[in-house]
């Protein structure tokens, strides 16, 4: 049976189509999920895509957090459902308290758009199991509010428990504390990152295919689970 991976579309989502395509190219069945539904359609994993949900009004992700589908995602995540938040999706996960910390305006104020090098710090999540810990990948980064912040105690806890999943290398593009590009929750099933793996799944449309392994990882983690 093919794994079903859902991608949520909020009003203002931009990268849901690319995320659905990445899921398909990884070999899973892509399932569109709608922000206004209370239905996860029996998916095996969920991707919250990039974009500007609800126009980024108030704070990025602040209003998406209260959408009907997010109530289902929060509940399912507590029961172990694999969830990946990309860019705006990462912001939604932080606002939902599924991940600690927050994402605020880039230190340089500029919207940043570039091919970003990252180090995969841990393979111990369902979204990174196909990478070697310590390996470097290049995927696009595009955001205006991607500066990861948290209090020093939270940052120390994240580092000590191996919950920093991705770190910027070759320069910090937005002032994120401790060069953090992505983190996971304590259980490991919820991962958020600012750069976009779904834009790097083939050499024709991205800087390479380094992002594809994130979607293959979750697929394989279901087979072995």
């Amino acid at each position, binding site marked *: 049976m093919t794994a079903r991976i859902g991608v949520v579309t909020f009003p203002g989502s931009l990268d849901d189509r690319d995320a659905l395509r990445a899921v398909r190219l990884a070999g899973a069945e892509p399932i569109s999920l709608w922000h206004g539904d209370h239905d996860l359609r029996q998916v095996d994993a969920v991707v919250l895509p990039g974009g500007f949900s609800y126009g980024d009004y*108030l704070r990025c992700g*602040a209003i998406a957090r209260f959408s009907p589908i997010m109530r289902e995602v929060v509940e399912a995540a507590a029961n172990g459902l694999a969830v990946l938040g990309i860019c705006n999706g990462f912001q939604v996960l932080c606002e939902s308290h599924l991940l*600690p*910390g*927050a994402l605020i305006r880039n230190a340089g*104020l500029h919207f940043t758009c570039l091919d970003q090098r990252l180090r995969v710090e841990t393979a111990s999540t369902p979204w990174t199991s196909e990478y070697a810990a310590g390996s470097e990948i290049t995927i696009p980064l595009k955001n205006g509010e991607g500066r990861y912040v948290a209090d020093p105690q939270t940052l120390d806890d994240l580092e000590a428990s191996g919950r920093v999943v991705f770190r910027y290398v070759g320069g910090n593009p937005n002032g994120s504390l401790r060069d953090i590009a992505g983190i996971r929750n304590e259980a490991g099933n919820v991962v958020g990152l600012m750069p976009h793996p779904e834009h790097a799944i083939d050499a024709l449309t991205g800087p390479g295919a380094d992002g594809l392994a994130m979607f293959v990882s979750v697929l394989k983690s279901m087979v072995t689970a």
Partner: protein
Amino acid sequence: MTRVVVDVMLKPEILDPQGQAIQRALPSLGFDQVTAVRQGKHFELEVDGSDAGAVADQVARTLLANPVIEDFRVHVAD
């Protein structure tokens, strides 16, 4: 109906690059005296019922402010 004002500010330890950009623009307008600017949000709520302050406090805590990065103050108009 009671008018309640909620002011939300980034916590002092959180970098405010927007406030800094505003501050840096001021000398060119002749305002050399302004040494720091912090930018925040100001909300005006109209609330029914007798416990407007408590309702606004909950609204601020739940939605208007993100307690991870922001502080807020609630002012109930007389």
